[in-house]
């Protein structure tokens, strides 16, 4: 009786079996070669895709047409414009021109003068209205 360690004896292979094994090995080899070729093609495709995408983005960025940087530039410009317009509004809103352009020193002095003039005219108007109201009250008292 054979012990479990002793290798099993194989029957001698017939030439047909040898030929079949050789064919199977050839086919296996061919499959392995095809698989390797496919893997290489995929690696090449990956490298090409990455390179093309990199180049497109690089050129886009270098030529100043990058979407993110464009958006940033637009946002910054809009913020600047907002700041400028708000500063113009705070200094020269009562100027007769009414433009949103930043005011020069002469324009601002003029606007200050015009604003002071307007305040004086407002004062005059208020005194006039007081006078008219007093006169009105006089009228009412006279009527009564």
């Amino acid at each position, binding site marked *: 009786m054979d012990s479990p360690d002793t290798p099993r004896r194989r029957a001698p292979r017939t030439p047909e079996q040898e030929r079949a094994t050789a064919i199977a090995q050839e086919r296996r080899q061919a499959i392995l070669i095809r698989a390797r070729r496919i*893997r290489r093609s995929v690696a090449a495709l990956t490298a090409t895709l990455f390179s093309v995408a990199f180049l497109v983005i690089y050129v886009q960025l270098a030529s100043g047409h*990058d979407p993110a940087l464009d958006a940033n530039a637009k946002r910054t410009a809009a913020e600047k414009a907002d700041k400028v317009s708000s500063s113009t509004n705070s200094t020269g809103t009562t100027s007769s021109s009414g433009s949103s352009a930043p005011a020069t020193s002469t324009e601002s002095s003029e606007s200050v003068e015009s604003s002071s003039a307007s305040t004086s005219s407002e004062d005059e108007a208020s005194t006039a209205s007081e006078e008219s109201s007093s006169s009105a009250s006089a009228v009412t008292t006279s009527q009564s």
Partner: protein
Amino acid sequence: MTSTSILATAVGPHLFWITSRAAGIAALVLSSLSVCIGLLMGGGIVKRQRLELRVTHEALALATLGALLVHGLSLIGDSYLHPSLADVAIPFLSGYMTLWTSMGIVAFWMLAILGLSYYARTRIGVQRWRVLHRFTALAWILGIAHSLGEGTDAGQAWFLAMTGIVVVPALVLLVIRHLGSARASAGPAVTAGERRAARKLSAAAIPQPDWSDHGLA
């Protein structure tokens, strides 16, 4: 100074960012191709050249994972966002576009786990693995949503055209597959026992060759 060096100086600070964007685009294309081939194989649409398809599917999936690793890790070097490793690896941690970023991170982990589980499918159980592997399509869809929602180039015509070319065929195949499986599930339900019995019957009906005379028994 030459024009090339001027360009390099201008683009230099953004190199990590460009690398990340390019790798993301490559990953989107590769994953879409991989999903396409997987659906062609699984749906039984292509019945010949299965070996080539399987090898291509596997290689594309591995290339996708590689591109996704480059996409995430290169962002760490970006001087503008400057995220940590945790920011790019753990969902809902990054403060930048949290929802879209988290969607991308979840998609990556799903793709990695479901994709690499192929090598442990005998341990998991082939049938169970196949069911799990279907969720790869969900991860792919999450990835597309991430690229369209957060991608810097998402508004660009070339990006949308490229995405359409690779994504639409895969989506069509996915719909066909789901319609097919829905139709199959609407038919009479076959239990596992019935399937086993049918297999035994067919095995008994087909005469088995006697290999003993070839020394192969």
